[in-house]
């Protein structure tokens, strides 16, 4: 038996199962959702406490950008974790699946954390809406544009509180973006094993 045959045999006998995927998915998903939740909460209270400056670059806007980046990178980190802890040999489809599931876990855990925080501070959403409207009111633009913007942003904050909406809309989009980053990580960190698809 030559070296190549031996290594293929070893691969078959040690083929990772579903639980090995889930370990990376859940660990990375939970960590990233907690981190993004804390960042969101911190910048949310900064927005509430801040004097309305009329600037577009507000804590809420920074929060949106940072959370987006953090959540989209999670799929890549989950695949990296998998290649470190389980095996470097993974198929592109497996990397994509790990990425998508990580995105789904992030959305579900974030919904749970948001609901828990609503028990801790039930007025958070209303305070946030007031702060956002106050900031928009201070902006240097025509009154009609200000009103439209204030309505849009208040509605945006309000609609984020629906559990169904968060899950229904959040999982496909966050999942898809993490699926892409999961595949990128597969290309960077993974090693290819012979496969048919």
């Amino acid at each position, binding site marked *: 038996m030559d070296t190549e045959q031996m290594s293929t045999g070893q691969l078959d006998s040690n083929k990772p199962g579903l639980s090995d995927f889930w370990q990376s998915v859940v660990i990375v998903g939970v960590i990233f959702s907690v981190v993004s939740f804390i960042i969101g909460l911190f910048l949310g209270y900064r927005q509430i406490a801040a004097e309305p400056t009329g600037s577009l670059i507000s804590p809420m806007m920074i929060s949106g950008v940072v959370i987006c980046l953090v959540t989209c990178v999670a799929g890549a980190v989950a695949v990296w974790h998998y290649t470190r802890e389980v095996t470097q040999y993974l198929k592109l489809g497996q990397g994509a699946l790990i990425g998508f599931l990580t995105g789904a876990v992030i959305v579900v855990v974030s919904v749970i954390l948001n609901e828990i925080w609503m028990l801790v501070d039930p007025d958070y959403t209303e305070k946030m809406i007031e702060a956002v409207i106050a900031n928009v009111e201070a902006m240097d633009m025509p009154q009609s544009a200000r009103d439209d913007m204030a309505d849009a942003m208040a509605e945006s904050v309000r609609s984020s509180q629906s559990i169904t909406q968060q899950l229904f809309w959040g999982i496909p989009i*966050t999942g898809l973006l993490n699926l892409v980053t999961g595949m990128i990580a597969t290309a960077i960190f993974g090693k290819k094993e012979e496969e048919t698809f």
Partner: protein
Amino acid sequence: MQHKWLYAGVLAALAALVLFSLGGGFWGGEATARHWTHNLFYGICHQIPERSFHLNEIPMAVNSRCFGIFAGLFAAWAAIPLFTRRLSGNPWPARILLVAVMLQILDYSGNVMQLWENTNSSRFVLGFILGAPASLTAGTLFSTNNHNGK
């Protein structure tokens, strides 16, 4: 080319992503009501109207940078079959992706520190530059001759 079904599925999903991100102006929404496409992207984009392109006087469902990223992801993903052989084991998409990430950080930081003021067009272009190599990096794995360049 291998993983054809995965490729086709992601292509369809990215096409939907771009079409949905066009927002109520494309999908027949009204300026006065919040469109469902805005709910779709709430979790990943700040959706500030002033930083978004408008279609039929309605802001798109994502800001100009996110739209650039989605458009770049889709355009490059659609082009993968044309470059499958060239992409095989090619380290350049990943390198360009790294540079594109640094460009985003630089542009965003400069704007926050008021060193310059970016525009919808500049954000779109920078977003596109990030999205396209992201797809091409994943595209390096679609060649049947691929060895990950390692």
